[in-house]
């Protein structure tokens, strides 16, 4: 009975917050205040436990992939929406699915977790498996030291119940070892990494010195195809379709598959995993295609230099029509000078509060700009008004906040809320 009142209150606040169009984290915050054991109480009902997904980039995509693989094996999955990766965000997400008595019918929790809160959340959620994706230079205003971010992830990995899955090709995370845990790795073949214009964008551990120990990846991307990738799993190889283009998505897929393999054990069936990828829709804003007039808008979302570079590198040819937008959701954009924009031969519209700074960067690189329009709403109208491109695709390269506004403007409802 202790659940009823806090959950009712949380739900009421949630309804009110939604009606006001506000954020969704507060109901979770309130429930955690009233019922500090809420996270533990609900998630301990999951027979297959909880899986954590950590990383500087790719958390949402990989969480989405891993959830779909688990579902393809007949499991009921509880997962948190994109970016709802702080304690209150996860509590809010649980709140929307539990019964008034705190029951939740799920077999497994697949959760993306913010690195700064991961150790704390592990204390409440006791993950059986922790997946570490990568350490990339990200939001320096927030953490300053990439090694600090790496420590947050490896400290969390050490709290896993049984398995840790880590990135063989990450100088900080690859060498992770444990005397008590099962540690396996994913990666991309050296040939693929060498062929990528700017590599995998993982941070260099200058303070650790170059690793000399050769590490094995139990799941390794060995080829990129037109629509997907080949992933070697020991002596077996699987071809998966990818929901979006780019080596980084292939690596995320290898990470998700390896995590499913260890979490499911002998139950893992590669055919089911392949089927899951075949049916997978892109995660919000990662290669997602939405209608814009008689054409389609293809969204590529980024949050830092690494993810923008990887997405630019994944472009097969310079896009015919492209909008590039960054707003105050990304406060310090010094890093745009570290990005190589040469895969663009022009940009039609630059937008967002940082529009003039983007324009300044592009002018330094000699990339022509059509219009600088800081207001994203007007910028989208400009993109709509451009004649239909021969490829029928208008590319939107945007940060999270700009993507949310753009989706709404194109008539797509706001299904996810950020914590």
């Amino acid at each position, binding site marked *: 009975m202790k659940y009823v009142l806090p959950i009712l209150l949380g739900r009421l606040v949630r309804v009110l917050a939604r009606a006001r169009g506000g954020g969704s984290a507060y109901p979770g915050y309130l429930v955690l205040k009233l019922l500090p054991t809420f996270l533990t109480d609900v998630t301990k009902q999951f027979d297959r436990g909880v899986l954590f997904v950590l990383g500087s980039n790719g958390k949402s995509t990989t969480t989405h992939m891993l959830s779909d693989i688990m579902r393809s094996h007949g499991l009921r999955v509880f997962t948190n929406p994109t970016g709802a990766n702080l304690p209150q965000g996860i509590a809010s997400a649980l709140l929307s699915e539990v019964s008034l008595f705190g029951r939740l019918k799920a077999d497994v929790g697949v959760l993306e977790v913010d690195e*700064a809160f991961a150790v704390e959340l592990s204390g409440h959620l006791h993950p059986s498996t922790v997946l570490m994706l990568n350490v990339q*230079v990200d939001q*320096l*205003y*927030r953490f*300053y*030291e*990439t*090694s600090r971010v790496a420590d947050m992830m490896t400290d969390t990995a050490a709290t896993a119940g049984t398995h840790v899955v880590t990135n063989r090709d990450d100088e900080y995370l690859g060498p992770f070892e444990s005397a008590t845990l099962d540690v396996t790795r994913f990666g991309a073949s050296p040939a693929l990494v060498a062929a990528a214009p700017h590599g995998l964008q993982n941070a*260099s551990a*200058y*303070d650790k010195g170059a690793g000399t120990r050769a590490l094995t990846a139990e799941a390794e991307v060995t080829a990129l195809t037109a629509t997907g990738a080949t992933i070697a799993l020991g002596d077996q190889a699987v071809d998966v379709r990818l929901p979006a283009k780019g080596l980084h998505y292939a690596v995320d897929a290898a990470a998700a598959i390896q995590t499913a393999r260890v979490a499911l054990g002998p139950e893992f069936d590669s055919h089911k995993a392949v089927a899951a990828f075949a049916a997978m829709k892109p995660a919000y804003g990662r290669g997602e295609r939405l209608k814009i007039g008689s054409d389609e808008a293809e969204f590529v979302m980024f949050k830092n230099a690494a993810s923008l570079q990887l997405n630019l590198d994944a472009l097969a040819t310079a896009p015919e029509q492209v909008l590039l937008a960054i707003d*105050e959701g990304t*406060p*310090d*954009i*010094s*890093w*745009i*000078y*570290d990005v190589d924009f040469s895969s663009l031969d022009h940009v039609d519209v630059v937008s967002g*509060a*940082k529009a*003039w*700074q983007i*324009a*300044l*960067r592009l*002018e*330094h*690189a000699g990339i022509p700009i059509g219009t*600088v329009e*800081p207001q994203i709403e007007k910028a989208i109208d400009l993109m709509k008004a451009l004649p239909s491109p021969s490829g029928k695709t208008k590319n939107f390269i945007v940060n999270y906040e700009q993507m949310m506004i753009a989706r709404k403007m194109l008539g797509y409802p706001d299904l996810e809320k950020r914590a």
Partner: protein
Amino acid sequence: MTDLTILQLYPEQLGVSGDGGNVVTLAERARRGGLDVAVTEHRPGDALPAAADVVLIGSGPLSTLRAIHSDVLRFRELLSDWSDAGIPVVAIGGGMEILSRGISGEGADLEGLGFFDASAHRGAQRRANYFKVSTPYGGGSLYLLGFEDHATRFELGAGASPFGAVVSGGGNGDGREGVIRGASFGTQMKGPALPLNPALTDRVLTAAVARTGGAYAVADAHATLDEYATKSREVISANLEHVFKAM
């Protein structure tokens, strides 16, 4: 024939805050001013460079300052001689700190080059905000705009001059910002500093070419760069009070 050689120190290790942007803008503005430009780089283990007309050292976290520490100490005499000869050394964030007498606090105990008469104390309140500074560098007072992101109190020696005065932001922690030594300076200004502040870039270029008897002037080819920089600065000016959550 090269009119201007720009030397960047440790582009990978001290290049995490868009420090390459300072190099890009020096090179691009110089080229649009008709100069023939070469950009060279120094990495750990390389032989000391023979010559340069302007030197840039960017920012990086403490872990990478430690990683390049023994290498950068080799520059102690060279940078000092160059600066005395009028070659501008532009040092940003961690680069400025390692060029001071040393970095202490928060487990840091790094001897610096003593190039700047100052010392850096880590562990001050973390700042992540827009930044406005006035500087007398290279002539009449200039307002600079950019971004500030550090947790350092920067203490100047008795005879040292600051690079400027803080108009909005934290700076050294005492209302002053950075440090100046002849045509060389250190600052916490990121964003990066030079693309957003073309007038400062032009003063650095003027100092760099003056030494070799060259000339640099702003031309029509700079108009678009200047327009975009002006608009960027207007937006920053209007948002100076905007506070960025550090967590």
